[in-house]
């Protein structure tokens, strides 16, 4: 399997995404478009996890912690500032800075993979129980009440520089898709830069990379922080789509979902997790509307089955299949050519 994708492929997929954006309003109902904004937020979360886990080899089980911090930071900042444009940047920054502080402790402490997974998950869960307890007038940041279990309202997006010009749901959808495409192209570009390749080499063999003279702790910290920033951006779009943010963004289920999307889509690709998010979201929401099968049950089965049987995920498995077919055809042609040449030589 190829260790990293090519940037051209990223651009082609981005082109398809833009095409999808343009035709979506004419094929989907208005309500679906509103839901899509949430799903786009979630798919950015999956993208950020694919970046940090698939390309950096950093097993971050609590990626939804940064997602939630982004959502809360945006909601709180939007109330205090009164506009969404600056708040988005505050949200990205808040998530990235939080990740940088946490990352300092875990990467510079040389905590092992599995410990890191559990620590990040624990951080997310502790934030969950912390935010659930913040119901009361004494828990507020500036003018924004945190609201405990019920969470706090999130302002819709508005035109840059004009806090009163709210975007309509359709415009919000366009903006969200644009942000998704930008985030996707950015991560696709990032993994082809020198920085990205060093991160991939850390994933493949950390000790060797260190011996080659790279400070792996710093690289991991930077990647962790960048991906947290992207997750925070996803959180912003999600809470804008839902119009409020509750402590559930930090819950175990949310962290599990992000992991499932990445596993199902394929952790070595960037587009796989995004597609998996869209497909599985609509699958689980249609499961949620019937009573026979519990959604958790189905997600659990999906996770176990994929770990045991399709550990690479759907997209890499399909890609490998195509690649194998191509090489097989190529080898067959080569064989035929060799045979022909031999024939001629004899003849």
């Amino acid at each position, binding site marked *: 399997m190829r260790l990293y994708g090519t940037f051209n492929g990223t651009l082609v997929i981005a082109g398809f995404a833009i095409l999808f954006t343009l035709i979506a309003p004419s094929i989907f109902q208005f309500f679906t478009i509103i839901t899509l904004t949430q799903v786009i937020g979630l798919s950015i979360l999956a993208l950020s996890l694919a970046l940090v886990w698939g390309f950096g080899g950093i*097993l971050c089980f609590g990626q939804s912690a940064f997602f939630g911090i982004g959502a809360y930071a945006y909601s709180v900042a939007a109330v205090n500032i009164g506009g969404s444009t600056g708040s988005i940047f505050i949200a990205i920054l808040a998530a990235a800075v939080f990740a940088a502080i946490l990352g300092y*402790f*875990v990467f510079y402490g040389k905590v092992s*993979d599995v410990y890191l997974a559990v620590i990040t998950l*624990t951080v997310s869960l502790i934030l969950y129980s912390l935010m659930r*307890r913040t119901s009361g007038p004494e828990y507020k940041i500036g003018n924004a009440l945190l609201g405990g279990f019920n969470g706090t309202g999130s302002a819709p997006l508005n035109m840059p520089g004009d806090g009163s010009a709210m975007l309509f749901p359709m415009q919000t959808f366009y903006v969200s898709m644009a942000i998704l495409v930008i985030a996707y192209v950015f991560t696709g570009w990032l993994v082809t830069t020198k920085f990205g390749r060093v991160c991939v080499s850390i994933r493949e063999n950390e000790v060797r990379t260190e011996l080659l003279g790279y400070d792996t702790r710093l690289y991991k910290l930077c990647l962790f922080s960048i991906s947290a920033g992207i997750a925070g951006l996803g959180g912003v779009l999600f809470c804008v789509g839902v119009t409020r943010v509750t402590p559930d963004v930090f819950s175990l289920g949310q962290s599990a979902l992000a992991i499932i999307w990445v596993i199902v889509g394929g952790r070595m690709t960037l587009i796989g997790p995004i597609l998996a998010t869209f497909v599985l979201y609509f699958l689980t929401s249609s499961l949620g509307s019937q009573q026979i099968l519990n959604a*958790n049950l189905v*997600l659990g*089965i999906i996770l176990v089955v994929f770990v045991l049987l399709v550990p690479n995920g759907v997209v890499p498995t399909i890609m490998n299949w195509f690649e194998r077919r191509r090489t097989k055809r190529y080898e067959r042609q080569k064989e035929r050519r060799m045979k022909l040449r031999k024939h001629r030589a004899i003849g």
Partner: protein
Amino acid sequence: MDLLFSLALQILYGIANLALISLGLAIVFGMMRVINLAHGEFLMLGGYTVVVATNNGVNLWFAMLVLAPLVVGLIGLIVERCLIQWLYGRMIDTLLATWGLSLLFIGIITSIFGASTSTVISPPLGTVTIGEYTSSGYELFLIFVVIILLALVYLTLKFTSLGLVARATMQNSDMSACLGISTSKIYMVTFSLGAAVSGLAGGLLVPITGVLPNIGVIYIAKAFITVISGGSAILAGTTSASVLLGGVNGIMSYITGPTFGEVALLFAAIILLRLMPTGITGRFFRKSQ
């Protein structure tokens, strides 16, 4: 004086609680290097065993102390044979598979019992009065149970042939296999014992917390952080980490209220891991079990 004593008792209970919910996880992690993300659900299943049993007229003590560990130990055995044994040495896949299992258990229990419970079991044993403060007798009983449990684990590891074989497998599984020990069987027994201890813990906590399909979440964050801070030695690790983190949690909860107690616990654990990345027993008490 009474206040101090009452506070000390409260902190002691916090420590015991932490040790109780972590011990099952610590046994599995210490022996097999497997982090069982379905640990919270084992606790939950122990709780449901007690609820179902008492609803059917079984004595509460029998249900808590015998049935809960038995049922969850059996479930652990099935899980080990069907899932975990295929994933040894693949730590990350084990994490993911047990996570899937955790969701599966939550899903199954929600489908059967619904999202809430019907019974509330009130803590038995009444209250104990210390000067002008009262304390729950059941909490004292739990502290006592945890001490007994730790002693039992210690005695098993130190003085029985199973403990000897288990310690050998823990130190060097390849060497033990060469000496004719079936490590696969040891792992199977360990995992179901760990599950049984988790079931016991879950059962014992029912009168205090009640039980819900997703109650595992409340426990696991604390259990994970305790086990990881403790390091690989089962007893010394769990005990030292519970004392340290439970102490921090108790004192901070007393000063600022319960909201920041857990946050302080997490901070303490993260700073601890920065200083000692392999946990307390990675640095101190290395020769302990």
